[in-house]
């Protein structure tokens, strides 16, 4: 699992090179490769960035995680929650590169996305910085173990 601590105080998200709207919570430098489709990625031995659509099977990427620097997961509509499973599956498999939610990404889904392992967000429409900060600070505790490093309540109860 990747360390997914919420951004420390005073250190806001880095905006990425691709757009002014992107939010990124990683220490390393952003990747500049264009993301190809899953099918194209599996065909090309040199691709290092892939975009996962809702209908794709993220597990097809598992044998190739070593060569991936960037996985984008597309949310064509915020109500289609398949991307949350794709993200978690990749983190469970040990993927440590950038995991970026793109598309119809809204403030009110950010916290759950972060818990599923996303560490970058490239929404179609810019997000209000204050709302973003509030969203990430919203939950003092969590009930479940997920793809982030937050300690679930049940672990705290029986520490």
């Amino acid at each position: 699992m990747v360390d997914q601590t919420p951004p420390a105080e005073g250190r806001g998200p880095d905006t990425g090179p691709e757009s002014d709207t992107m939010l990124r919570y990683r220490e390393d430098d952003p990747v500049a490769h264009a993301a190809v489709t899953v099918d194209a990625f599996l065909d090309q031995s040199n691709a290092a960035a892939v975009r996962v659509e809702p209908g794709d099977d993220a597990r097809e990427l598992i044998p190739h995680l070593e060569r991936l620097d960037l996985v984008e997961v597309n949310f064509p509509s915020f109500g289609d929650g398949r991307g949350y499973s794709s993200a978690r599956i990749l983190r469970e498999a040990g993927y440590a590169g950038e995991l970026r939610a793109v598309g119809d990404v809204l403030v009110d889904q950010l916290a759950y996305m972060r818990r599923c392992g996303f560490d970058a967000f490239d929404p179609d429409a810019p997000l209000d910085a204050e709302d973003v900060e509030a969203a990430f600070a919203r939950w003092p505790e969590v009930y479940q173990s997920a793809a982030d490093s937050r300690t679930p309540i049940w672990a705290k109860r029986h520490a």
Partner: protein
Amino acid sequence: MYAYDQYDQQMVDARVAEFRDQARRRLEGKLSEDQFKPLRLMNGLYLQLHAYMLRVAIPYGTLSGAQMHTLADIAEKYDRGYGHFTTRQNIQYNWIKLEDAADILADLAKVEMHAIQTSGNCIRNISSDHFAGAAADEVVDPRPYAELLRQWSSFHPEFSYLPRKFKIAVIASEQDRAAMRLHDIGINIVRNSDGELGAAFYVGGGMGRTPMIAPQIRDFVPLDQLVTYAEACLRVYNRYGRRDNKYKARIKILVHELGAEEYTSQVEEEFQHLLDSGVEPPFAELERIRTFFADPVFDEAAQDDIDRSDPDFALWVDRNTVAHKQDGYVSAVISLKPVGGIPGDATADQMRVMADLATRYSFDELRVMHTQNVVLPHVRKADLHAIWSALDEAGLGSPNLDTIEDIIACPGLDYCSLANARSIPVAQKIAQRFAETKKTATLGQLKLKISGCINACGHHHAGHIGILGVDRKGVENYQLSLGGSEAEDVSLAKITGPGFDEDGIVDAVETVTSVYEREREGEERFLDTYRRIGMGPFKEALYG
């Protein structure tokens, strides 16, 4: 019953703050209705036929006197003096304002209540046996498992944007008092041949447009793998449930289209993978939760005899009390089905009466039944007369449990924008007909369920007699079906033939009960007679 620790309280408080912020942003126009809708639904707030409607969660149907008092206060302060108890053990208020919603959630949070995930494409209220902890036939009290799963499912980051709603029921007995086989996931806590407790999983049941009985997916999941197995079932659904058609998006369609065997195989594969992912709480957490569901300190000297000299009281005892595992005790059922009343509705004052009776006579605990009545689970027989007198005075003493007067009805076209026909007036007319003709007693156990549309919130597919309201060229019409059951002898009702108008359906119900009276053998229920003789004689009597 379960009591929050600081963590549980922090979670509901955070949720109130989150919703308050979301409502503010909606009112300011920062959120469109399309963006706001799933957020408010995940806090139980619908935009319904007359106003906003709020559905408050009553986890596995259990609540305390103080909580029932708060529900009464909310009805008075924010609504129009009453609430409606639902077929999923929740309560809903029909006249809510968006500008009050966050305050209501804050009031609820003060008494460890909420409206979390009572709507939306997420995991809903987990229901259970309304006689849990009191029934003599239960293997264990099922509610600790429901509570464990409630916490697991609340604010689940992966499963909050499912293809559709997701309903789970947990029981722990051979008798199914929670319609478990008609849920997306039904869990029955059982003992294996070594005497160990585990969970039998049934996946893919449901009512609605395409009713289905859930097949068994696994006969025994060890208790220390319960959450992991549930997670596997949900992940397969989230990934592969249909999203192209709202009416084919439930897990029952996925299980049906893949076949139970293939679905099971995918779940087992995901389950094996997830076992290494650390999602299961330690067994100590289940044990911690169980301590909240220990038996109350029963009065070991409680007397068994009841003074039956008052015939009205005796009738209520015979009909509305249910055997309890402890000598000298019963579970008492408070009827929310007065003849001519609105099934499942209670005024704020009635809620207060129920609350105070629970605090005084039932270890401060009440249960909501999915059949829209309320239970005082642990009552001494010696206290029954005092209880009944108070109930009778409050209009809560109808002695009609499981009779034809004990109708389950969705709110229907009077309240619901999804409905095609009114269900409540039909329920009222039917109850009145049988009360007037004094047939209620003769007919014995008869579970009649009415839905105002094909979404089947009235569970008509599972009625011994089921009624479905439809729209026939702008005019309300009612289809009659027979032979459904929600219990362990689960079956889906069959339509008799052409539908009836509002008066016609009442006559039709009377006709089929007359056939039953004519044909019954021995102590057979209506359902048994139907199963023995088939649809033929009923069809003949209805349509000639």
